[in-house]
Each structure stands twice: as C-alpha cells, then as structure tokens.
C-alpha cells in the first residue's frame, strides 16, 4: 500500500485529474459567458436589421416622392414650354399664311412675267416648307392647323402635301379614287401626308422616285407612300409605332436633337381627327411603305368635280360663261369670174361680222336716221375699225407650228 502512496505516478495522475476538473469547469463558465454574449449580440443584430429595414423603407418612400416631384416639375416645365411654343408658333403660322396669301396675289399680278413668276414660285416653295414646320410644332404643343373652308379631292390633298416638302418633284401621284375629303380633315390629312413624304424623300437616295397611290378601300380611302430607300431598322420601327399610336400629349423634349417631329405629328393628328397612319411595311421598291387610311366618316358625301371645286363655285355667282369668239371660216373666196384684164373677180363675203361685236350704241345709231351727224360719223368710224380688224384677224395661223 505504501508502495502505492509512494508511487509518483499516482500523484501525477491526481494532479492531472484535478487540473482537468478545473479546466472543464472553466471551459463551462466561458461557454456560458459566450452563449450569453451571443444572445445579446443576436438581439442587437435583430434590432439593427429592423432599423435597416425601416431606413430602407424610408429611402424608398423618399425616392418615390422625389421621382413624383421630378415628374411633376417635368410636366410643369413641359406644359409651360408647350404653351410658349404654341403661342410663338401660332404667330409664325399666321405670318406664313399671310405670306402665302400675299404670294397668291403676286403670282396673279406678275403671272405674265416668266422670270418673276419663277422666282416667286421658289419663294412660295420655301414659304410652304416653313409653314409646315411651324404647323407641326404647333400641333405637338396642342395648337391647331387652321381650317379649310371647302372639301378637296384626294388628288388635290396629295398635291397640296407634295408642295410642302423640299424635293417635291421626286413625288409622283397616282389617284385611283376620285372622292373628296371633308373640309375639317383636309388640312390634317395633307399635313400628315406631307410629313410622310418628307421622311420618304429624306431617307432615300436623291433622284429615286417616291410614289403616292390613292386607293379606295371598303372602309374609306388609303394614301400609300412608297419610297426606294434602305428601309427602317427595328429600333426606328418601334419608335415610329410608339409615336404613331400615342394617344395623348407627346414629350417634345424627348424627340432628339435635332428633333424629329414627323411621326409624333402624324400620331397626334391621326388620334385627334380619327384616321390611321402606319409605317413599317416594305415598299415594292425595297424602302418603306407608309399608309394613311382615311375612314368614310372623313370623306365628303358626294364627289366634287375634280377641277378646282372651291374656285369654280365662287366664280359661278358673279361671272357669266366665257364669251367666246366664233371660229371664222377661212376658206378660199369665191371666184365668180375674171375681169377684162384677166384678174379673178371675187364676191365679197356676205356673212355677218362676228369677230368684233358692235357696241350697242352704234347699232342703235344705224337704225335711227335722225341721229346727229357726230354720232353717225362715230358709227361709221366704228364700222371702219371693225372692218380693218376683221381683215387683220382673218390673216390666221391655224394649228400648231410644230406640225
């Protein structure tokens, strides 16, 4: 037994055991302390998480409020810009209209002077393009085009549109329908067609033709514009489709720089007046085909005579039918024999002098023999003048010189 007590190994074992117990106890304490700390930390973390969520919510609401405010400010800025532009464009529109009226007068006044007329026409052409731009911007800003008084044939609508673009002589018009467009739709349809023609001529090679075909369809009339350009890429097609189907105000600041108004104007007018515009199909020439479909409700009930309907009706009231000169037969005069000298004898023409109508006063003077000598002389002189004029006019050149 003593040997056991004296055994150092036993003592060592004891010491180790005691140390182990101590170590275990200490570890347990540390563990407990750590668990507590962990719990505390987890609670703190939870709090922090909640705070973060709260803050994020706050940020989100601030963001929404900010974008809402921004949209409001933008809308305000947009509407005040539009209001200013609309009024400015209105002034330009009426000035352009005034200029065109003035030019109408000048074209008539200098109609016989070829050179002046040609110059006036080029002024008129730039004026028309200017007017179209002003009208386009005005329409986008909520303005109006101005109203035509009378209906117009689809052919005239197309020609009016043709006159509003730069390269108008590249455009050819083929009308397979002869209906008329109601007065209220005349300007908008011409305006939209002009924008489509402008696109067609701008985005196709110079010198290539642009065709307008006008066809009657069961639901109205279609203006079909075909160009021989490169066509549109998908992005442009999407943009066009979006602008053409827009049903509401258009953001004019989003139209690029330089702004491309065309499709926006088309979409706006089509929605306002109730006709349809589509682009994006391919023309037979490989370019773009754009179509305006004007419904029956915008077509005049009865077709008008094709030739300048408004003017004709205005003139009929105060002007009589054109006073024509009857064709004077120019034949060989009747040779009734020969004189003693061998010259042919001719009978005088018996027909009435129809070329120069006699004034009524002189006709009366001839019948009344009691007229004063002066009047008789006047009538004789008149007859003399008529006679010489007849002699001159019968010296005619019939038919064209080229034949």
């Amino acid at each position, binding site marked *: 037994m003593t040997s056991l007590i004296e055994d150092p190994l036993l003592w060592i074992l004891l010491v180790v055991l005691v140390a182990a117990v101590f170590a275990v106890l200490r570890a347990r304490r540390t563990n407990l302390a750590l668990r507590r700390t962990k719990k505390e930390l987890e609670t703190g973390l939870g709090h922090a998480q909640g705070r973060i969520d709260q803050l994020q919510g706050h940020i989100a609401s601030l963001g929404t409020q900010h974008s809402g405010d921004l949209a409001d400010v933008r809308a305000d800025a947009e509407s005040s810009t539009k209001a200013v532009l609309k009024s400015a464009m209105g002034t330009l529109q009426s000035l352009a*209209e005034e200029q*065109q009226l003035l030019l109408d007068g000048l074209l008539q006044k200098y109609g016989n002077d070829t050179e002046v007329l040609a110059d006036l026409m080029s002024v*008129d052409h730039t004026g028309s393009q200017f007017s179209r731009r002003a009208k386009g911007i005005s329409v986008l800003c909520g303005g*109006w085009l101005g109203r*035509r008084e009378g209906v117009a044939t689809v052919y005239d609508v197309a020609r009016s549109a043709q006159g509003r673009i730069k390269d108008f002589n590249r455009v050819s018009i083929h009308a397979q329908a002869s209906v008329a467009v109601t007065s209220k739709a005349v300007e908008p349809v011409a305006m939209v067609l002009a924008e489509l023609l402008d696109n067609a001529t701008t985005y196709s090679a110079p010198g290539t033709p642009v065709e307008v075909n006008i066809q009657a369809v069961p639901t109205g009339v279609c203006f079909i514009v075909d160009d021989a350009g490169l066509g549109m890429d998908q992005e442009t097609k999407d943009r066009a489709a979006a602008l053409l189907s827009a049903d509401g105000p258009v953001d004019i600041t989003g139209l690029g720089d330089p702004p491309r108004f065309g499709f926006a104007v088309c979409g706006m007018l089509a929605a306002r007046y109730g006709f349809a515009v589509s682009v994006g199909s391919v023309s037979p020439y490989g370019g773009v085909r754009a179509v305006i479909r004007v419904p029956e409700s915008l077509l005049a009930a009865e077709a008008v005579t094709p030739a300048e309907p408004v003017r004709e009706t205005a003139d009929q009231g105060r002007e009589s039918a054109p006073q024509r000169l009857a064709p004077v037969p120019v034949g060989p005069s009747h040779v009734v024999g020969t004189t003693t000298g061998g010259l042919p004898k001719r009978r005088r023409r018996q027909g009435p002098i129809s070329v120069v109508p006699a004034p009524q006063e002189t006709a009366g003077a001839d019948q009344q023999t009691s007229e004063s000598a002066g009047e008789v002389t006047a009538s004789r002189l008149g007859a003399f003048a008529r006679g010489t004029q007849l002699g001159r006019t019968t010296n005619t050149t019939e038919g064209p010189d080229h034949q």
Partner: protein
Amino acid sequence: MTTPGEEAPVTSDFVRSYVITGGRSLPSSDELALHTLVTLAPERTLPLGAGPEVRAIWELCAGGYLSVAEVAGHLGLPVGVARLLLTDLAEQGHLLRRAEPPRAQNVDRATLEKVLNGLQSLIG
C-alpha cells in the same frame, strides 16, 4: 382640348402653283401671248392622266376660241402657269392657235381728222 371650331380659317391656295407646273421652267410669253386665241382641235380625246387643270382647260376651250388671258382668268391660275399647260396641249396637237391681232399703231390726231374729213366728203 379645344373644339375644332376654334381653328382659324385658312384661305391661301391649297394646291400651290409650282406643284401644278411640276417645277418645270415656264415657257416664254412669245410662244403664247396674252391675246393669242386658242381652241380645241377637232376630234381630240382628253389625254390619259390629265390633271384637274388640264380637264378644266379642255372644257373651257371646247366651245370656241378663247384668249390665253381668259383661260388663265377662268382657271384662277397665274398666266404663266396656264401658258405652260396650254403649251403642253399645243405640243401634243390638241390645241389650235390663232395669232393675236397685230397691235394698232398710234396714229396722230391730224391724220385721223384727215381720214374723217375724207370719209365725210366721200359718204356725204
């Protein structure tokens, strides 16, 4: 939005004259002077694809001689534009032209009085 009734009326010519001429250069006035008389040649048919203005000229000139100035007046077109359309028709052989009467020369009063006296002594 406002009603269409608010729109200001537009009264300028709807189809501009340079579109009617197709941007072509205008013929000089020597070709067809203002007083030149034109009428349709007999037995002609309206060319295919004739525009409204050509159809109107066709109707106007069908009934007899009419001066270039009158044709332009009735169409409401500048004379130069009407002249271009008439020249086209004439070149296609659809129109007959008669030269304008030559301008009366100004004779002085003394000569006229002499003629008057002579005539009075002749006629009595």
